[in-house]
């Protein structure tokens, strides 16, 4: 067989492995909880953040002007507000409707009811909100967008979704399921590799200085500096472990011998980030993405 043919077949086998839909159930349920938690946590400031007349910290109009310079095609709440204005609906009603629809989309995703429309709605409304408060966004928002984008394109519904039992919707093709899981897995490898390599090239991560700075900076300073000082000899160990764990992720997450350890370590790292820095939603989305990407592999191995 010619070499090119061999490479092509191996590439296809790698990109389109036959896969069950367990990972998709984890992604759907996890993102459903994430979207609900995001909407619920933003409810107190929703109108203050996005209203045109807002005098506060995240003026939507200004943010959307900056966004238009970067990308006029990126979705934003301003589109919905303009549509509402055309139809004679007030800005406040449009904003609260968007918030309610986002929350409902999260609930629907959680149960797997109208899975595809719910995934598209959640992706669009979450993206609109995130882009309209661009100056206030952080990694958690990007990872939620990434997860929702893949969920929206993946072959929904999965076997645990209510859709399957209510409407007898046919399940997705195993190779298509395998392709979208592969995309998620490789994306996770990119994420950790670049995060790890950027940290590893700084001495401050190996000496523990960066851990100290991260844990004592407002608003991540949940642990008092006095307590941290008493554990100061652990700081370089933790800093070095993070560098190794993240940079080594693309290498050690694939072999069966190291996968369980690496996955457990990365999930533990995110649990620790959530608990010690108060970044609960960030920790949760990373656990969900890792769970969807690699946990079903472990489950399947145990099953077999």
């Amino acid at each position, binding site marked *: 067989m010619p070499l090119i043919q061999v490479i092509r077949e191996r590439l296809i086998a790698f990109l389109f492995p036959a896969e069950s839909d367990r990972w998709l159930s984890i992604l759907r349920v996890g993102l459903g909880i994430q979207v609900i938690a995001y909407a619920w946590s933003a409810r*107190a400031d929703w109108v203050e953040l996005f209203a045109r007349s807002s005098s506060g910290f995240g003026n939507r109009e200004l943010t959307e002007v900056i966004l238009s310079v970067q990308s006029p095609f990126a979705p934003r709440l301003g589109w919905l507000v303009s549509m509402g204005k055309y139809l004679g609906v007030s800005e406040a009603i449009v904003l609260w409707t968007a918030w309610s629809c986002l929350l409902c989309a999260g609930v629907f995703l959680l149960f797997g009811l109208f899975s595809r429309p719910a995934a598209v709605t959640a992706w669009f409304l979450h993206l609109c909100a995130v882009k309209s408060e661009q100056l206030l966004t952080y990694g958690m928002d990007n990872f939620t967008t990434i997860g929702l984008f893949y969920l929206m394109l993946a072959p929904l519904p999965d076997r645990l979704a209510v859709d399957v039992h209510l409407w007898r919707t046919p399940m997705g093709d195993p190779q298509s399921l395998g392709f979208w899981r592969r995309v998620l897995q490789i994306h996770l490898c990119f994420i950790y590799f670049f995060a790890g390599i950027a940290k590893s*090239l700084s001495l401050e*991560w190996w000496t523990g200085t960066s851990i100290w700075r991260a844990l004592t900076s407002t608003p991540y300073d949940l642990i008092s500096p006095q307590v941290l000082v008493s554990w100061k000899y652990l700081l370089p160990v933790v800093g070095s472990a993070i560098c190794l764990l993240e940079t080594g992720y693309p290498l050690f997450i694939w072999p069966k011998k190291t996968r369980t350890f690496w996955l457990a370590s990365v999930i533990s790292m995110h649990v620790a980030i959530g608990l010690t820095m108060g970044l609960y939603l960030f920790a949760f989305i990373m656990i969900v993405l890792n769970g969807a990407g690699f946990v079903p592999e472990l489950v399947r191995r145990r099953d077999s």
Partner: protein
Amino acid sequence: MSRKGVLAGFFILHFSLIFLVSTRQVLFGLAEGNTLLPSSWSPVLARLVGIATTALAENLAPENLIRRGIAGYTHSTGIDTGYAYFAPNVAISHKLVFEVKYPDGRVEYDLPHVGGEATGLRLVLLFDNIARIRYDVLRETLFRMMAFSIWLEHPDASVVRVVFGVVDLPSVSDFEHGKRESYEVLYAYDFRFSPPAPPVSP
């Protein structure tokens, strides 16, 4: 083209963009120095940043369709930024304080406040973004809006001064020797607001 071919094409394009965006962010951080790499590498790293920027079509005119298309795609898929969080070094913290001055000479101090804890967390990111803004007018506009929200709570105030600065955190050994965080002012702006004039009766 077969369905697998389309998906494989998507795969290559999607991950090429992720690679370019992520590489550029890492190289940009490294080019700024204060890493394990020799400082003599900075010009080369900066040149590589330029190459990645060109590959992402960001050197084209803002109205160019290719540039707009790539930017629209990266923004919509959540891949418009890289993954170098807290890297190569943890960023300096910033702080914002309002000095509310009254006509009788009284001065009150206020801090930014929001309704929910989750939004409070985001304020820090806003401060970091403000610190990166190179356009004075944009920075001043943001501060003016914040000052206005404070003035609404103190309508008798004559001046709202916005003081923005960096928080200097002590190192572990400095902390053990009693040093605590200090504050260095970067920018201070004075804003005056007046209530809207009452409607004139005919």
